């Protein structure tokens, strides 16, 4: 298996110097998987669930705990597209781009949202309000084109209707704020 990194200190549970409690949840996952190196992907999933994304600090923490070289942890994390390394926006919009959705115009939906809300595909708008991602078919092909706006499923809607829902969502927040 992989070589261990000798000069790293032995990890202690909840030992992140910042005192951030959330590392405790990562520790729990580490313990449950008995610090096995092949559990790396599982631990990264937990870390991303807890923090919302994986930054260098979190990746280093996991590397030390599993006694893996940071390059290896980084290599694995960046290989898989579900791991993200930047904080997500306040709201997320995910457009399914599976074949059925493609046939029903998902490409236009993505382009229109990107243009209107000034958010790059796979990124977050500069004001941090909206993230736009695409998914490879989530198997709701009967609802094509399918969009997931935060947790709400929008099915069989046109591009304009979808953007109206996003406008509404962003507007309600502004009033509260």
């Amino acid at each position: 298996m992989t070589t261990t990194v000798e000069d790293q200190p032995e990890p202690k549970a909840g030992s992140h110097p910042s005192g951030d409690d959330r590392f405790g949840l990562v520790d729990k996952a580490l313990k449950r998987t008995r610090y096995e190196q092949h559990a790396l992907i599982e631990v990264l999933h937990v870390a991303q669930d807890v923090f919302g994304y994986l930054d260098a600090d979190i990746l280093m923490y996991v590397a030390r705990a599993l006694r893996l070289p940071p390059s290896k942890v980084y290599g694995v994390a960046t290989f898989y597209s579900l791991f993200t390394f930047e904080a997500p926006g306040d709201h997320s919009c995910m457009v399914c781009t599976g074949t059925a959705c493609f046939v029903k115009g998902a490409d236009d939906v993505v382009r229109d949202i990107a243009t209107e809300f000034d958010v790059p595909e796979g990124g977050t708008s500069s004001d941090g309000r909206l993230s736009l991602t695409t998914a490879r078919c989530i198997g709701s092909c009967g609802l094509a084109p399918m969009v997931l706006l935060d947790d709400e499923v929008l099915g069989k809607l046109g591009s304009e209707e979808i953007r109206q829902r996003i406008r509404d969502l962003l507007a309600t927040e502004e009033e509260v704020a």
Partner: protein
Amino acid sequence: MAAIIDLHEVAERELEARTRYPWRVKACASTACQSAGADAVVRSIEATVAAEHLELDVQVVPTGCMGLCSRGPLVRVLQRDVDTETMYADLTPEVGEQIVTSHIKAKKPIDTHVIDEKMPFFAGQEKVVLANGGVIDPNRIEGYVAHGGYLALQKALTSMRPEEVLDEVVASGIRGRGGAGYPTGSKWSLLAGAPGDVKYVVANGDEGDPGAYMDRTIMEDDPHRLLEGLALAAYATGATGAYIYVRAEYPRAIQRLDRAIRVARRSRLLGRRILDTDFDLNIELRIGAGAFVCGEETALISSIEGKRGQPNLRPPYPTEAGLWGQPTMVQNVETLANISSIINRGGEWFSSIGTPKSTGTKVFALAGDLTNTGLIEVPMGTTLRHIVEVMGGGVPDGHEFKAAQTGGPSGGCIPASHLDTPVDYESLRRLGSIMGSGGLVVMDDRTSMPELARYFMEFSMDESCGKCAPCRTGTVQLHGLLDRIATGTGSEGDVRELEHLCQVVRDTSLCGLGQAAPNPILSTLHFFRDEYTDAVSGKEPADA
């Protein structure tokens, strides 16, 4: 140690409990129906049942997929004394309320929402792996057991030697449902014959083909069927450990499998001394993280080991050196879901379904420009025309059928002139497509074939893992050429270049991803060449 489950007693108790209710309302709670608002419909039905004080008469149960996803939310109402079942489609909370007040209380069905279960969409089906869909509550093992669940495992462990189980699978003629169609019995024989005391079986639940959700439905709606198939595979091949690899995009499948594994272990259907025999097996779940290539068996094995999910050159095949270097067999979820029926009813019975070389049934996810979309299970050898025109109800809105796409980014397009092709491994391959995992997307006359080819190439380009150059750079080049052609800036030279590069990428890529990535281009060039030539006609070479 936990008590061993008494399968007959559990089944009897479960069936008896159902008869206490004169009415049974089965509500499809699968992902498609839920996204169409099934939760609100069920809440409305339950609230009305309570308001009308019918709790002792009406049993409301969530079930798995009923198939006709385009018409969800779907509900079936069973009236026990006359043994009739009524299926409802396109439900809203208001109609849900009427199901109780009008159908159940006044015996007046709401005709505007009733659909005939004898309609062609349902009539052409033969259900083996989806037999429990829309019938049982996926979260209760009792439902699975009441419909004969785990009897095959019990039969195998108590009255069959591993070789006899293997012989039935060989006799069934079943071939892998994950795409390539490798004979399952041969693969099991390889693992059984491999030397060593430690061997693994792995269920492949990565299902990356965009437009396909057969395996997700099996894992979500009938998780115990997969566990039973996997346990039988382990018993027959002498495997000592088992894994199920599920893509992370399927959280519900993960949650249900996790629960099913714990319940099975408590019932002594997994773990040590299964059903009080000498057979031990644990099944572990492993979750992907969004990489299509991880569906490829050697990449999947790397991913389970916690590494980058990159494929390795075969040979050695996993059955020689797989997970942690030990003999390993990777098998698709749908393939495994067939095994319990094969053991219960015999390999000969299974081989009587379908065609001589493609036995059994196949589940397809019908999507795209069709009147009826959803999940169907048909005998192998059913013609595409029957699936598209009769079961799918044809192309809606006055448009013409143009092509059916099977096999996703590794497959091809089948034009109207070949609609009479029977769906079997060889026939589809002869047309330049593949069976694939079961995505079947229909396109009408508005779809541009170069654009479709570009769509699939964008997919392959994004998902190429980067390990081998032909796939890493070839897919980028192919996508660039297709982009020029599709946007009307390409030349005739681009089409020639495209065709040539397809051969190179196909012949020199390391794994199936690159080898099959040119298929959507080659098949659309073959059947719809004029769309390419029209797009570039009279154009000068762009960079000449």
